[in-house]
């Protein structure tokens, strides 16, 4: 008879909510924030963009850098979709909608991790 064993484990995921504008002015601070958490061994980052109104290429670059660093450390950086059509559009224009893992809510993002 097949031997089935089940188990569960918990993973530590840091959740961060961003709102307003994520542009060149804010990107440096966000990069530092990601870097600080990764240095502390926090390699799973769930970023809620649902209340983000404006995202530019510098903000996007901060998210991409965080994702690459998190994945290199064995974790990931995943995103909750922005509700703003304009903020969502830049992710589609750059094809990063196919690179990041997304969910429509933080609950869904954490549940599918």
């Amino acid at each position: 008879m097949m031997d089935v064993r089940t188990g569960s484990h918990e993973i530590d995921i840091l959740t961060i909510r961003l709102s307003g504008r994520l542009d060149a002015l804010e990107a440096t601070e966000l990069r530092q924030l990601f870097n600080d958490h990764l240095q502390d061994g926090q390699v799973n980052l769930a970023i809620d963009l649902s209340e983000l109104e404006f995202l530019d290429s510098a903000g996007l670059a901060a998210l991409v850098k965080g994702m690459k660093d998190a994945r290199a450390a064995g974790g990931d950086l995943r995103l909750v979709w922005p509700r703003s059509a304009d903020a969502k559009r830049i992710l589609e224009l750059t094809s990063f909608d196919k690179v990041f893992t997304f969910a429509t809510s933080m609950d869904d993002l954490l549940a599918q991790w």
Partner: protein
Amino acid sequence: MADSSVLLLESNHLALRTIGPWLSERLAPLPDEVAAPVRGQIELAVHELANNSIDHAKSSGLELSADIDGDELVVVMTDSGLPFEADQVSPPTEPQVRGYGLMIIEQIATAIDYRRQDDQNRWTLRFSLDSTAFH
């Protein structure tokens, strides 16, 4: 009195936040159902162009103008920064961290013209005011 269609920006990232409100003023003559769907995308493209001027052309300041031309908005940006070298810009390879500004502009604007005149960079971007052109 200064022409209200012209926006002078200092060369810093905080100054870029005035682009959105300025564009809203420029689009104000249009019905809201025309301006609202396109305003955010046009702001993003102009923001990226100005950001490139600050980060890559190292300009000390820049000037923007915007005029409605039929069913298009024409935005002109001039700066006295370093010349744009098209052959030094290549589309990013995913998931590269930098280099998406021009790619974003090219996908939003319907036409882009760049000229170097009198030691100045002059960019002309044309945007459709038909929101279906953005999707």
